[in-house]
């Protein structure tokens, strides 16, 4: 239910006055200010960071290892400097993007060092090390996306093997996915209740609850649109299914935007990002070209963002871009 509808209902039932309704809407609009631009920057950061990680994973031998190591650390220091400058200038949106890039650079650097010294190890060791080393960036950031990603990495490092087997088992059948939807839904509700019970004191519970909600949503989407990801597990992949998923998200985003339902807009944006990411990931063949492609997409988003910010006063006037 959108905020407008909700507050109208409250006014009709004499729960709040008309003045209070206007105050609530004004507060919420102010609170969600800049959400879209922040999301665009985080997505750009995600694409650029993942592109660097993919290029490292490709282990391209055009350049000698020493040059790759120096370039990697130089890039990382550059991002850290970017974060520092944005901290000083209080550009919070850009600051989150740079911290996000630093977080991903940590993973890329661990991967590069592991490749250089031919270190063998499971995902769990890598994830735990990544989570611990990158913790300072997460503590400095106010980004929900970064916090969520860090928790996923950290938890997968701790219980990755068990979780992997559990997911493989659950995704094997329709009944398994349906059970997953119910389990995630129940856990999301339980964690949210616990969060409220302790009077919102531990924010992490709220994050876990939201993660579980995304899990529910994602499992539900997998259940409905399982045919929309091209990979060897899915021989019946059809382009119609992809179009259907895209149309579904466009419809959900448009409806959320039209109804000014910001929670729904945020949820669907994140799900849309996840879908695009998995779609790209399922198409990976050559990591180097995919990495370059990711970086170019990220840079393109940044360029578009810059152009929108600088040139179009009309667009700037749109509520959602403010």
């Amino acid at each position, binding site marked *: 239910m959108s905020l407008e509808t909700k507050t109208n209902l409250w006014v009709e039932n004499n729960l709040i006055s008309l003045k209070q309704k206007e105050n609530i809407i004004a507060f919420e609009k102010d609170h969600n200010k800049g959400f879209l631009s922040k999301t665009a920057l985080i997505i750009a950061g995600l694409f650029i960071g993942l592109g660097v990680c993919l290029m490292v*994973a*490709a*282990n*391209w*031998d055009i350049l000698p290892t020493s040059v790759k*190591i120096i370039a990697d*650390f130089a890039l*990382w*220091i550059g991002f*850290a400097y970017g*974060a*520092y400058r944005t*901290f000083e200038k209080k550009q919070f949106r850009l600051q989150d993007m740079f911290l996000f890039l*630093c977080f991903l650079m*940590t993973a890329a*650097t*661990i991967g590069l*060092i*592991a*490749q*250089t*010294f*031919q*270190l*063998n*190890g*499971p995902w769990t*060791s890598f994830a735990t090390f990544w989570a611990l*080393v*990158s913790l*300072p*960036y997460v*503590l*400095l950031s106010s980004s929900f996306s970064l916090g969520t990603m860090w928790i996923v990495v950290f938890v997968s490092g701790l219980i990755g093997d068990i979780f992997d087997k559990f997911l493989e088992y659950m995704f094997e059948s329709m009944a398994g996915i349906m059970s997953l939807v119910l389990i995630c839904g129940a856990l999301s509700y339980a964690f949210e209740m616990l969060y409220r019970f302790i009077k919102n004191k531990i924010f992490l519970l709220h994050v876990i609850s939201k993660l579980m909600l995304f899990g529910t949503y994602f499992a539900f989407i997998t259940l409905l649109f399982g045919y929309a990801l091209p990979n060897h597990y899915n021989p019946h992949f059809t382009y119609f299914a992809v179009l259907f998923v895209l149309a579904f998200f466009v419809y959900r985003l448009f409806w959320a935007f039209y109804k000014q339902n910001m929670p729904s807009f945020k949820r669907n944006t994140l799900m849309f990002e996840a879908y695009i990411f998995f779609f790209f990931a399922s198409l990976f063949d*050559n*990591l*180097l070209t995919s990495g370059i492609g990711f970086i170019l997409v990220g840079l393109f988003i940044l360029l578009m963002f810059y152009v929108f910010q600088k040139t179009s006063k009309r667009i700037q006037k749109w509520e959602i871009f403010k």
Partner: protein
Amino acid sequence: MKKNILVSILLLPIICLACWFLFLTCSQIGTKEVRLYITGYDPRDLLAGRYLAYQIDWEKTDCTQFENNICPKEEFCKEARWGRQCRFYLSELNASLFESMLRQQVKTFEVIYAYKKGRLPIAKRLLIDGEDFKKVLKKTYTDKKA
């Protein structure tokens, strides 16, 4: 937040990984090189084809390279999963080529390790029929062009 604290927090992870890199570089200095024969292994991994998955062939390996002429089997590929499978990371463009060569067992594959008792052995070079794999790769491409 104070400027110094902010800079320290931002640089801490970078310094941490730079120290790790230096530690691994230094730990290779002054270590003995040992030459081990390897055989192929089914990687069963999503990233398969982007590295060379192998097992050490202890039967062919010369154990006189080690102390008391005993091969320290437990010290190699400790971290590897699924039956002590080791990895040698190669460029994704060449990994599948070497992987199939290793499986066909037509050529002899060896890995040179930097080894010191009690320390993590570090794989340094891959040899194919006694030659560095980069030279073999160059030859393969030159032959193909010709």
